[in-house]
């Protein structure tokens, strides 16, 4: 008897009892769909975190006024201004481990086009800022050095702002807008970026030259920089850049040993990797839960196969009497449990993908269905079928035909 015939015999035996076969599959279906759905959601969360940090920029540090112990981490308007424009220049020119540095001044404000008006975040910054963020325009151009030098009244819009002011699919470049009632010309619209890791919507923002910001939007002290400094490290060794910048600023601010920093630096690269570690842990936790349910599915198969062997004792006796060898009986039951587990796995994949899609659409979770996870789940469920089918199959093959035929 060849393997194909063994498969046919097993399949026929399974089809002879469809309800039992389905119930046996059910454990596997639940197990595998749990694996697929949970890993999809876990991976989705991970991918989203990675994406969000990528949108923020790589190897990023943010220097803010005020010590972290004073709650200066918020970097809001409440903190004492301690960072100066000279500090920014020094960071740019004197620290070799810094690639770019750019100011980030922020204000809330009302923006108007001819028809619409929209409240958003107004940022004042320099051209380097876009390099640090690695942001590009979808139309028009970014801010230039000369815009800053001349204090030009030009703005680059985030996608959301462009949509709100001019409507979806419009071309705002060259149009006029009023920011806090001051006329500006739109020179560019940024490509869509989505939610940031920190919950900010970078698409709901607009960017103007920092000099214009200082003179028109938020007149501040000329010496002090009333915002934060974005720094991109030259290498992925952000800790070293952080140390270099700290040393420079402490020196410039003439802070004696033992005195706290009057500024704080957030290392976003470290936060990013910590977050990614977190989601990785979550994914493995979910995978562990899913593996347990797969195990339960396997035990379910073993259970039903044992019941099936007992129930079909007479059939086994008959098959032996008419010439089935022990290994053929064993193969039949193994193929039966393998088939059940395999099809349970396949259905489980479908149910899992469905569940994950449903969850993501109704709760707004992102999901990522990895083909390798799907393949592994199916292979693993088939393997579960073999492993948990082994004992019942062996039990069947060791029956004595005489006893089996007489079994009531």
């Amino acid at each position, binding site marked *: *008897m*060849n393997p194909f*015939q063994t498969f046919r015999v097993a399949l026929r035996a399974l089809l002879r009892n469809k309800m039992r076969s389905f119930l046996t599959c059910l454990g596997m279906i639940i197990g595998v769909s749990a694996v697929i759905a949970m890993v999809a959601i876990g991976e989705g969360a991970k991918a989203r975190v990675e994406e969000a940090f990528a949108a923020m920029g790589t190897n990023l540090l943010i220097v803010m006024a005020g010590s972290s112990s004073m709650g200066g981490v918020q970097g809001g308007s409440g903190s004492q201004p301690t960072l100066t424009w000279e500090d920014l220049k020094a960071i740019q020119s004197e620290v070799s481990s810094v690639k770019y540095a750019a100011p980030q001044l922020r204000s809330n404000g009302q923006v108007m086009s001819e028809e619409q008006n929209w409240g958003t975040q107004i940022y004042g910054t320099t051209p380097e800022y876009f390099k640090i963020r690695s942001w590009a325009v979808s139309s028009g151009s970014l801010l230039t050095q000369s815009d800053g030098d001349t204090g030009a009244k030009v703005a680059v819009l985030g996608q959301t702002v462009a949509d709100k002011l001019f409507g979806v699919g419009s071309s705002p470049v060259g149009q006029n807008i009023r920011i806090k009632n001051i006329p500006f010309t739109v020179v560019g619209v940024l490509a869509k970026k989505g939610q940031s890791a920190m919950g900010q919507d970078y698409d709901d923002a607009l960017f103007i030259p920092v000099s214009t910001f200082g003179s028109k939007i938020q007149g501040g002290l000329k010496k002090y920089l009333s915002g934060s400094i974005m720094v991109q490290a030259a290498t992925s060794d952000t800790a070293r850049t952080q140390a270099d910048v700290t040393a420079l600023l402490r020196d410039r601010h003439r802070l004696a040993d033992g005195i706290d920093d009057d500024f704080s630096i957030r290392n976003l690269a470290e936060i990013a990797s910590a977050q990614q570690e977190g989601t990785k842990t979550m994914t493995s936790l979910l995978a562990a839960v899913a593996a347990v349910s797969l195990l339960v599915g396997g035990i379910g198969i073993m259970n039903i196969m044992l019941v099936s062997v007992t129930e079909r004792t007479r059939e086994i006796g008959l*098959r*032996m*009497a*008419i*010439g*089935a060898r*022990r290994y053929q009986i064993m193969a039949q039951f193994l193929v039966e449990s393998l088939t059940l587990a395999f099809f349970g796995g396949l259905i489980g994949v479908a149910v899992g993908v469905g569940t994950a899609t449903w969850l993501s659409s109704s709760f707004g979770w992102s999901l990522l269905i990895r083909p390798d996870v799907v393949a592994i789940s199916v292979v693993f469920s088939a393997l579960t079928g073999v492993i948990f089918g082994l004992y019942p199959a062996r039990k069947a093959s060791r029956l004595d035909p005489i006893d089996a035929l007489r079994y009531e």
Partner: protein
Amino acid sequence: MNAPLIHLEKVCKTYRMGEEVVHALQDVTLDINGGLVAIMGASGSGKSTMMNVIGCLDRPSSGSYFLEGQDVSKMGHNALADIRNRTIGFVFQSFHLLSRTSAIENVELPLVYAGVSGKERKRRAEEALKRVGLGARIHHHPNQLSGGQQQRVAIARAIVSKSKLLMADEPTGNLDSRTSIEIMALFQELWREGMTIVLVTHEPDIAAFASRVVVMKDGEVLTDREQEPVVAVVPPPASRPGVMT
């Protein structure tokens, strides 16, 4: 071939039940070479044990058993399985058909284990079913067939491999007398075509259709005699009221 089909030589079969030793077969020496052989005897006399040994489902505790001149008493279970597949057909009191499986698929089963290809299997199974008079019911399932028809399917399964030997343990035990006679008529036909049939029965009426009767008692052969078999003739169907003929 001058070796007899079945040759039992001082075959003993003992069962140990705790302290007690049961001698199910004691020094049975017996040759069977053709014939429609009925094995009779009281309950517990060792008939089934003898059938199991002859049918290669069980091995003797001592003594030897030659089937077609081959000593099968020391063979391993795989070799015995192959012999059962090729040389022996079984018919049981309770039919032992696979439920929810058509007659033809039931009959095909021994050929599946013999590795016969699907098309050839179908052809031979159909032929066997025709031989037992069920050519019109090959796709019926056991629960759609009467007891007598189910036993015919089982007989078709026993002859489909063209085996030389047919073993039947109480084949008419679950059937009414009319159907029993039909089955015995079929056995007589198969015997006259050259098959060796060994059947166990406790009914003298059934044993009367055999060409030889072996009576067992306490694991030993009590009597063993050839006889002129009564020809099994199926009585015409009793006229039923309301049926126009």
